[in-house]
């Protein structure tokens, strides 16, 4: 459990025309998956690296659980923050097990504990410990290397995980499954994750909190749904393609919509003819079901009980601007 707070954080590279990070302020609550989204050069990676102090700051302060990181030992700080770098970043001269064991070994765990931890972690990232422990990174596919990179970052059970465009080098199918596993892992460990990407789809599907960056400052901060439905600037609207109604539908769940909307009236029809969907399903998926089945409405199920009824008009209102 760890919260992160940026207060007026500024990074200026010598000789650069403008600061790479220009006085940003943001509070990321514990167990939140925050995504920094923006074009290359917007300062998102620089900002990420200020957290584990790989990047010194020129102004402002960064707090973890309310403690200013400037007062902490950077080495100790980094050992309790997981770090997954761009382009995998495994050490080619070490085996998979040795790569994963780097931080536990730095922390001086005994070899029995390290070995058990390595096996647990490999299993968690869907790699069979028996067959992968003793391989070298060059013997793995891009997706497998990325899984090892995540296992290595998680090795010492960090409460904060920094991920810098971790899935940039793998193909779309592998990326989708790694994203799914990242979400599952985040729910399981309760770690606070800061995730940097320039991939809008990835950002929208992962983020609890989405931070859109441009030229070193925050253009907008909010949930993916908030940002898609109410983009604060033309830049944000264009970046996330907010005009795409289907994309907006894809980030709102049935549960979110029906929680705010009035409950539907009981249905005169036979309930059996109306599709029932879980509250966690997106509006986009619900629309697809309506189009496919020809049903004018769907029943929204919450914990197996009907919580609301949703029709096409409600969907239309949700997406109208």
């Amino acid at each position, binding site marked *: 459990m760890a919260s992160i707070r940026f207060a007026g954080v500024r990074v200026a590279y010598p000789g650069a025309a403008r600061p790479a990070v220009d006085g940003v302020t943001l509070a990321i609550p514990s167990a939140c998956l925050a995504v920094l989204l923006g074009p290359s050069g917007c300062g998102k990676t620089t900002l990420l690296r200020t957290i584990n102090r*790989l990047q010194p700051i020129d102004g402002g302060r960064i707090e973890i659980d309310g403690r200013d990181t400037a007062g902490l030992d950077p080495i100790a700080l980094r050992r309790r923050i997981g770090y997954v770098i761009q382009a995998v970043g495994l050490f080619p*001269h070490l085996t998979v097990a040795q790569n994963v064991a780097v931080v536990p070994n730095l922390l001086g765990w005994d070899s029995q504990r390290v070995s058990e931890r390595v096996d647990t972690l490999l299993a968690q990232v869907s790699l069979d410990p028996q067959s992968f422990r003793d391989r*070298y990174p060059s013997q793995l596919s891009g997706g497998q290397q990325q899984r090892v990179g995540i296992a290595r970052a998680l090795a010492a059970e960090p409460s904060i995980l920094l991920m810098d465009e971790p899935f940039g080098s793998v193909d779309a199918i592998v990326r989708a499954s790694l994203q799914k596993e990242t979400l599952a892992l985040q729910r399981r460990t309760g770690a606070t994750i800061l995730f940097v990407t320039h991939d809008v789809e990835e950002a929208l599907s992962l983020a609890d909190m989405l931070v859109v960056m441009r030229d070193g400052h925050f253009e907008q901060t909010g949930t993916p749904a908030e940002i898609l439905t109410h983009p604060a600037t033309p830049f944000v609207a264009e970046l996330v393609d907010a005009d795409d109604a289907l994309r907006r539908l894809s980030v709102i769940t049935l549960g979110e919509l029906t929680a705010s909307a009035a409950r539907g009236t009981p249905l005169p029809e036979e309930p059996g003819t109306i599709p029932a969907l879980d509250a966690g399903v997106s509006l986009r998926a619900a629309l697809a079901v309506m189009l496919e089945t020809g049903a004018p409405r769907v029943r929204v199920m919450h914990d197996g009980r009907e919580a609301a009824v949703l029709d096409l008009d409600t969907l239309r209102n949700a997406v109208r601007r």
Partner: protein
Amino acid sequence: MSWLTGHAGEIAARTLEHLLLCGTAFAIALTIALPLGLLAARRSRAGLPLIAALDAIYTIPSLALFALLIPVMGLGFWTAVTALVAYAQIILVRNVVAAIQSVPSWMVDAARGLGMTPLQVFLRVELPIAAPVAIAGARVAAVSIIAIASVAAWIDAGGLGTLIFAGIERQDIRLIAAGTLGIAALALIADGALRVAEHALRAPTPPAGG
């Protein structure tokens, strides 16, 4: 054949001298080049003039360098060692620099990000990755030292060069051949031994797949 058995003792003695001369020079050269190379790799402001100076030494013909040292150091073993060390420096320093720079910056970044101290980054990441590259350079330096050391005979430092110079003086092709072949054999052996070390240190890169 009887010539060879008659001269076996001298050839062996000269070979030992040659080995001692080159081994001493190589060891001293490495001891100096490692810190110099590290410095040059880390601080380019100090590194560039350093490399330029070493380059300048390298352009002096070997015979001239030996001759230049005589007024300062006199004749003998240590004068020869000094000249050989000076020659090997540029090869070794350049290679240490290249070796350290061959470690990709993302790897150093990952190591720091995981919480390694600067010393741990060096010992656990930079050194293992850089060592094979540096040893490849050391091979070139070793072979150069062994070859140039033949000139050492000219300043009374002994070695297999003695046989060659004696052969030229007496117009005895057998002496020249013995000296030359001995030097070539030493060079091949040194090269082979360092090649084995280089391969042993290379990061394992078995066939891809799986």
